[in-house]
């Protein structure tokens, strides 16, 4: 289905990486699932896109709501089931461009926390089953939406672009909750990397496997697609060589030394002395 | 945020240690550990500035009341009143007595 409207980044990258692959049938507008390929083998690509006409009024700008959470779970679990008897599990690529979780009465009422847990569990189970799960951040990667879609990946890749950001809460809400002004928050974020919104600050935290420069993050050129595809292929090889199916890959960089130290102390103290 | 260091005369080194309280609004945590004989040192980190004299007065009363063991006291405070400070410090010493060394 083509649209004359401007595509979201998630939609643009999904199309580019799957050579305009046809989205799978039976999915809602907001969750696009394409069975494409990676390094010559089948791979499932998943993204969340905005739907201005979404029946749920609080899910019209690319948020992850109730349906999106459970549908992400479905898309991933179908893949797990399809490969259950196979020795080689196909890769799953989460193309990440999510404004936030959905904020609304319906969402709280019907348990959006549980829907996002459904998605997170599916991705985690896929990884534990041996599926290489790759998170590719092409736009916003915010809060609960990221926890549901991408943060359980074996490897995280982000584009180096002003439109790419990772955070726990939007600025206005964060300012209100911490009883500061947005300006004060931004001043703090300038010297406290974990509080910053931009992807370069995020990259200093040691959680990303790669930060990729591209020409047009919002509408990839052929060179951009090539570069990202190459990176995905490398990530796939790296995951398969790893043999570990947990998130310990995120503890390698020196920025994670405090998190590592906590784990080392726990381990040292675990057995009764 | 302010850091205050105080010292008071004390008796023999404490045996054992104690941790009480939480750094919640209007509350504080108190950590007690043994110190060398004769001296109790207090290191305070507090969210409320300009109260050093009040801390000195409150702690002098609590620690000077009867001969207490020599301890290193760490206080992390989030705006507790003198009454709450006194309560938590006394609670910490009580726990020290109760456990006798853990």
């Amino acid at each position, binding site marked *: 289905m083509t649209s004359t409207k401007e595509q979201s980044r998630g939609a643009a990258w999904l199309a580019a990486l799957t050579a305009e692959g046809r989205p799978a049938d039976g999915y809602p507008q907001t969750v696009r699932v394409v069975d494409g390929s990676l390094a010559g083998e089948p791979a499932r690509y998943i993204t969340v896109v905005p739907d201005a006409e979404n*029946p*749920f*009024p609080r899910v019209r700008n690319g948020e992850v709501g109730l*349906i999106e959470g*459970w549908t992400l*779970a*479905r898309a991933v679990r179908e893949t797990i089931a399809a490969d259950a008897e196979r020795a080689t599990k196909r890769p799953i690529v989460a193309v990440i461009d999510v404004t936030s*979780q959905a*904020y609304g009465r*319906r*969402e*709280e009422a*019907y*348990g959006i*926390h*549980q829907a996002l*847990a*459904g998605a*997170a*569990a*599916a991705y*985690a189970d896929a*990884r534990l089953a041996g599926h290489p799960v790759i998170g590719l951040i092409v736009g916003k990667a915010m*809060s*609960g939406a990221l926890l*549901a879609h991408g*943060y*359980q990946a074996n490897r995280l890749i982000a584009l180096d672009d002003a439109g790419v950001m990772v*955070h*726990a*809460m*939007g600025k206005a*809400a964060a300012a*209100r*909750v*911490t009883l500061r002004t947005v300006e004060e928050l931004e001043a703090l974020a300038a*010297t*406290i*990397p*974990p509080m910053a919104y931009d992807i370069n600050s995020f990259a200093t*935290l040691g*959680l990303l496997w790669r930060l990729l420069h591209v020409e047009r993050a919002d509408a990839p050129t052929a060179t951009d697609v090539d570069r990202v595809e190459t990176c995905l292929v490398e990530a796939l090889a790296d995951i398969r060589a790893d043999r570990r199916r*947990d*998130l310990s890959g995120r503890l390698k960089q020196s920025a994670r030394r*405090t998190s590592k*130290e906590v*784990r080392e*102390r*726990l*381990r040292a103290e*675990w057995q009764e002395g | *945020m302010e850091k205050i260091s105080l010292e008071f005369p004390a008796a023999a080194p404490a045996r054992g240690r104690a941790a009480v309280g*939480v*750094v*919640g609004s209007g*509350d504080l*945590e108190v950590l007690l550990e043994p110190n060398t004989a004769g001296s109790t040192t207090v290191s305070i980190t*507090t*969210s409320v500035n300009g109260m050093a004299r009040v801390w000195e007065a409150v702690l002098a009363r609590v620690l000077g009341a009867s001969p207490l063991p020599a301890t290193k006291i760490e206080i*992390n405070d989030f705006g507790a009143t003198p009454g709450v400070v006194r309560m938590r410090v006394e609670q910490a010493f009580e726990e020290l007595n109760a456990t006798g060394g853990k």
Partner: protein
Amino acid sequence: MNCEELLQRTSFIELSARERARALLDAGSMRELIGPFERMVSPWLARQGVVTQADDGVVVAKGRIDREPAVVLAIEGAYQGGSMGEVGGAKIAGALELAAEDNRRGIPTRAVIVFETGGVRLQEANLGLAAIAEIHAAIVDLRRYQAVVGITAGTVGCFGGMSIAAGLCSHMIVTQEARLGLNGPAVIEQEAGIAEYDSRDRPFIWSFTGGEQRYRSKLADAYVDDDAHAIRETIRAALRAGAPARHRSDRHEDFLACLAAVDPTQQARPDAVRALYKEGL
């Protein structure tokens, strides 16, 4: 309940995180890991003028429950709203990871998580969020071997990324005082407006996210009085029962079928939620 029973009750809500962990473990078995005297505090708060707590607001308590090896992760809701920072988050994730490792070596270590948290500590934003993702990963790993039991008792409740962690647990226990929801009321009001969600209307908030509503909507597994003994017994029973055949988080088909029956043009009502999920789950 008569006067004597009332007087003998110990409020679980009024206990600190450390006291809660002690109350849940077999008497005398508690041994705290990375306790306050190790002073593993947040590396990020002092420069922002926030006083650190020596245990960063998380208690890791090893011991036994029903004589089996166990670890209790108790979040101190009174410190920074129980929010997750780099150190506290790593304490929880790391302990869950070690519990899973134990199980792979034949040691049946089980975990109980006491959720009293608003989610990510915004002064550490992305590090809190990353730690929560690691907590999620560790719960999904561990629950393959042992039931992971969560409880939220109040007064803070369980919000943000940690509500997702609660949704991953094998069993969730709630009290009347507790709330379990993704977004804090103030944030929903900020994002969606006061007509959508009035953050000062307490009965309204509890009607949707309160413990009793969650229990009656099958989004929690047990509903208990605020009594340490009763809570201890409920946790024991949940651990004895083991993980369910299918975790709630794995029931996307059932939930999608239920949600297909919802008319999104209408605003949600608590009684409709209860009716839908009681029938469909």
